[in-house]
């Protein structure tokens, strides 16, 4: 038996639904038809003089003439009372005529009003279209400005580090794993293929709740410092590290607390159980499995009890992400969610949640949070992250 009205739990009522439907109904206007009203009005005018109509012209017969004469006499006798009726009828007919004219005027005004509203509706629709286009153009320009700004900062950094922008300077750029074997600019590569800093920052916002009120957070492989900036803006104490000197210089240029270091080496120097959280964003796919295990072991050591480790990487179960994986020559091998989970749990982390982001179709939810035991990984998301707790 249902005991409670379902609306007790729902914010929507039948009136809300009706109001919503009413707004979707186009304004309707049908001109009024005055023919009947005017026809009746003319008939009323004809019949208003009851005295005149009471006696019609006589027929040819003597009986008809007699009847007409008798009626005339009767009319003369009743004239004093019937005259009031004729006057009353006159006023009524006049009133009806004026009402009809007023209604006709009203209908005309209503028609014009309707036209005006329709014009306004069309103007509003056109304006909304323009606004939509302008907003999308503004978004595109914002992204472009951000890219140009990042590039400018990177050039400044390069000038500082290498004393120029020439190809020899670019070739000398160190790779993320500290070697100098990459014959291209990894910073520019990231800028072009990873997306703008704003996009990455928005995408990483989902990880914020796990790092609130936990103490100091370490972002290993911070790249252009998106997550470091995000945590700092939330007032969370954060330290970023990256092996790429240009990336580090870029972050410092932006005023972020970032140092150049390898993850493993840095964590060895960190005091035991001193960190509240560690973020490994797009790092583990650059390492061989043994390297991942060693890094996780160091993380376990550095985190205090209850500390959180978030490991984000490319989702190998998504065909599109798999294709893009080999775009980055510094990637070693993709890491399957089950492998990462196994490695984390082997180290002692309790893996609490899986977060899937960067959907292939724009129609999908931007971020999906599931429990790790929920079943098959989501194949339509390009990145995933596992959240482990010490």
């Amino acid at each position, binding site marked *: *038996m*249902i005991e409670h009205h379902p609306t007790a739990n*729902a914010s*929507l009522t039948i009136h809300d*639904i009706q109001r919503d*439907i009413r707004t979707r*109904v186009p304004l*309707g206007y049908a001109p009024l038809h005055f023919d009947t009203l005017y026809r009746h009005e003319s008939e009323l005018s004809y019949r208003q003089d009851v005295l005149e109509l009471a006696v019609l012209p006589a027929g040819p017969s003597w009986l008809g003439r007699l009847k007409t004469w008798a009626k005339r006499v009767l009319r003369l006798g009743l004239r004093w009372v019937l005259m009031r009726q004729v006057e009353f009828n006159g006023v009524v007919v006049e009133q009806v005529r004026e009402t009809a004219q007023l209604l006709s005027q009203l209908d005309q005004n209503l028609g014009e009003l309707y036209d005006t509203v329709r014009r306004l509706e069309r103007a509003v629709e056109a304006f909304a279209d323009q606004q939509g286009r302008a907003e999308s153009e503004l978004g595109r320009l914002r992204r472009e400005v951000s890219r140009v700004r990042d590039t400018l900062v990177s050039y400044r950094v390069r000038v500082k580090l290498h004393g120029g922008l020439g190809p020899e300077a670019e070739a000398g750029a160190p790779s993320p794993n500290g070697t100098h074997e990459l014959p291209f600019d990894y910073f520019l590569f990231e800028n072009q293929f990873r997306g703008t800093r704003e996009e990455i920052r928005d995408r990483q916002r989902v990880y914020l709740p796990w790092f609130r009120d936990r103490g100091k957070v370490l972002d290993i492989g911070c790249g252009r410092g998106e997550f470091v900036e995000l945590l700092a803006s939330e007032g969370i104490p954060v330290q970023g590290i990256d092996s790429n000197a240009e990336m580090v210089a870029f972050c410092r240029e932006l005023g972020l607390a970032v140092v150049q270091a390898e993850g493993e080496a840095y964590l060895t120097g960190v005091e035991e159980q001193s960190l509240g959280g560690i973020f490994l964003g797009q790092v583990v796919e650059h390492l061989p499995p043994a390297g991942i295990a060693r890094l996780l072991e160091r993380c376990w050591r550095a985190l205090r009890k209850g500390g959180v480790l978030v490991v984000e990487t490319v989702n190998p179960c998504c065909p599109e992400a798999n294709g893009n994986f080999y775009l980055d020559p510094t990637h070693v091998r993709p890491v399957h969610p089950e492998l990462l989970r196994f490695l984390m749990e082997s180290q002692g982390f309790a893996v609490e949640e899986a977060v899937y982001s960067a959907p292939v179709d724009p129609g999908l939810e931007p971020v999906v949070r599931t429990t790790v035991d929920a079943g098959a990984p989501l194949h339509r998301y390009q990145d995933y992250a596992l959240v482990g707790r010490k």
Partner: protein
Amino acid sequence: MTPPRVHILTPVLSPGDAVTHDALGMVRQLRCWGWQAMAYAQYCDGRLRDLAQPLAAFEPFLKARRDWLIYHHSVGWPLGQHLWEHSRNRRILRYHSVTPARFFRRYQPRYAAGCQFGEWQTRRLLRDRPIRLLADSHHNFAELLAAGARPEDCRVVPPFHAAEELANLPADPRLERMLQGGPHVVFVGKVAPNKGHRHLLRVFALFHRQAATSQLHIVGRLDPQLGDYVAELRRQVSNLGLENAVRFHGSVSPRQLRTFYAKAHAFLCTSEHEGFGVPLVEAMRFGVPVVAQAAGAVRETLGPTGLVWDSAEPALLAEGLRAVCTAGAIRQLLIDWQRWRYECEFRPDRIAERFMAVWDELQLTPVRAVARHPGRSMAASAI
């Protein structure tokens, strides 16, 4: 001394008719409570032999002062009036609302005269001061007050219906196959001018422009006496270009009716006069969202659970139809709300509880002199 019996009078007892379901529901319920109850009708369907008998069988009980008489009034019935006036039983008037004569004047003067007689009869029935007046709805309650009833004599008890029996029937597989696709909009009710079919077609025509595959199923008896009305509707269908989208199904079997409810995406009601609206209750039971125009007791029956519009504007009703025919939160909310209302207000045991409250109260009411025209015996030939 034999215990008092309950006699229920109604002009017609025929399966599928709302008044019949109410009368038979009362018989069943009273028998459950241990009363000897029987329904009597001038035209009685043979299939209802267990619960109902022809009017002649009532004659021996006419003067039994301790017996109860429940008179179901929904249409003018001279013979019923005669019996009422000559009965010495304890009399209760069950009022189902009389359709105003104006709806029929243009199409069938004989029906108009019957309705007019019904309106006159309401006042005559009330003149004899029945012990209790049972109205289907507050709308009917107000009609009774306007006809001269005293408010303290009136109670509102919703009519018994057969929605649960319908739900237990198997679906009709042939009809089920026919009702694939959609959206299917359904209206259930006899094809009569007071049911507002002309407006129904106007609204559906607007909806059909947006949903080209939609179908309107008009389910209900096509009365040959109202041939002009039906012809007018068919002409309108053709003028609107809806020959392939609108179907008049006429009377259908209970299994077919159940299938219509099970397959319908929406119930559209543009009735101009409804004393209660049993099909609305059936739609609520079967999870068919209702879009309706507020007339008579429609708003009261649906409560805050259906899309009931005060305005008769076709565009508004058509947009409402579009909203409920589209799978989504609104459709599901309406279905849930309507089901909730059915469970709380119109489930047979709920109706039985309300009827029981009135019946128990009646047992405590002192018997008063009821016959105003004593002495005259009923002419047997009149039956």
